[in-house]
């Protein structure tokens, strides 16, 4: 604390703090100048983000693999032998193949429900410095994307469009703590509200105290007025735990999202809702156990013993 704190420094500090408070006030009052400034910054940054996404995709894949090493060890060991021959070509194609697979699944999902979608690549993961869970996609208002549109992954809901720029859009992921979606349980049609918790699991709060929820129940988006922000019928997740506390007015539970948010490469934004509610048509099929083949060997004894 040897710096004496001259009058000029203190004056500068006060001016800067007042300026920042002024900016906060302007932003909270919804002054469009600041929105335009953010939009302008994003317009400048988006080409660099796209370039960064292309250049760094091999490193990104490597880091993603390292992160999931514990969970996919068995799979990695199984694939290691096959990968030896194909490693060189796979390195270049891995990213494209994964995105193609995701895209195919997304189109299947959207086609089944009759959603009109715009596909987009994820070009940036949001900084976690602000405790928000967002991604940036490479399509924006020029492609017909608007604020508060549903965003799909290959397996279900990914999030909702938070901000739109001409060539990019910011998507709030379903894991974001401020994310909330009205859901219904497939089959029983019970309704509730699902909130993000910052991880792949979310909190479910049922609205009716007479109904019950069970582990394994599948949740689908209930849909919003005029289909924004959420179109109906999108698979959201399944119930992994139920809280039956006596003090609760209605049941609550923990839900695991279908979407793997760490591996999002391609997403689809629903720009047109179906005429008819798809109902439970989009419920993902339960995994079928692979049958183990049995081999029966018949041995016929030879008439004379062999020498």
């Amino acid at each position: 604390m040897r710096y004496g704190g001259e009058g000029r420094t203190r004056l500068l500090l006060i001016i800067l703090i007042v300026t920042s408070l002024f900016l906060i006030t302007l932003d909270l009052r919804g002054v469009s100048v600041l929105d335009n400034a953010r939009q302008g910054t994003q317009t400048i940054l988006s080409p660099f983000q796209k370039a960064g996404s292309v250049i760094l995709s091999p490193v990104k894949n490597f880091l993603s693999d390292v992160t999931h090493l514990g969970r996919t060890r068995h799979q990695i060991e199984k694939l290691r032998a096959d990968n030896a021959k194909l490693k060189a070509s796979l390195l270049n194609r891995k990213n494209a193949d994964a995105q193609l697979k995701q895209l195919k699944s997304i189109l299947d999902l959207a086609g089944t429900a009759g959603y009109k979608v715009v596909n987009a690549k994820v070009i940036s993961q949001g900084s976690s410095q602000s405790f928000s869970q967002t991604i940036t996609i490479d399509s924006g208002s020029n492609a017909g994307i608007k604020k508060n549109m549903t965003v799909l992954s290959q397996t279900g809901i990914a999030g909702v469009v938070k901000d739109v720029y001409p060539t990019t859009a910011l998507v709030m992921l379903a894991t974001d703590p401020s994310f909330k979606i009205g859901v219904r349980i497939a089959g029983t049609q019970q309704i509730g509200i699902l909130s993000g918790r910052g991880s792949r699991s979310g909190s479910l709060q049922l609205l009716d105290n007479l109904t019950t929820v069970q582990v394994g129940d599948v949740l689908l988006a209930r849909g919003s007025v005029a289909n924004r922000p959420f179109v109906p019928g999108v698979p959201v997740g399944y119930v992994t735990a139920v809280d039956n506390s006596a003090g609760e007015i209605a049941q609550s539970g923990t839900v695991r999202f279908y979407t793997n948010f760490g591996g999002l490469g391609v997403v689809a934004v629903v720009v047109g809702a179906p005429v008819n509610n798809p109902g439970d048509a989009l419920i993902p099929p339960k995994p079928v156990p692979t049958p183990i083949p049995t081999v029966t060997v018949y041995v016929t004894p030879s008439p004379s013993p062999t020498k």
Partner: protein
Amino acid sequence: MFTRQISLSAPIFLIIYLFQEAAMNQFKLPGGGFSLFVIFALVWAVLSTPEIAALTGFCAGILMDMSQSSGGPVGQWTLIMIIICYAVSYLGYGDGNINGNPVGVVFFVVSANLAAEVLFIASGALLGVTTGSFGQVLITLLGNSAWTLVITPIVLPLFSYLHNMVFETRAL
């Protein structure tokens, strides 16, 4: 002299900001990851006079607020960075044990980073910014601090060199 220092500092800030937004934000690291730009701004502030540190905090905060992944209103990060950058510089300026010692700089940067995050949560609560469950916030705070502790010693020589280049070049 002051104008010359600003004209040299501005491109460095912009390049690191661009690198953060275009490259660093591509990775989703465990524990919330880290912000290279915040580390840079804090190192810059620790090594500078309180006056320069306050200006550094203002510029860094404005750039962070302009980022689309910034959760709060414009000005929130600006306010936090002004306070934190001024505070670390005020506490450490002129003390050779702190800004002349790499361990001291790293300690200040990690502490300031943690303080900035806590301030963001506290001010966010007042401004209506949701930050998630207590557990998730705790993981992010610890993860972010751990990453900052690992990364700062690696990048410190470069940032320190850049700071010296801008502020210790004598006019001919």
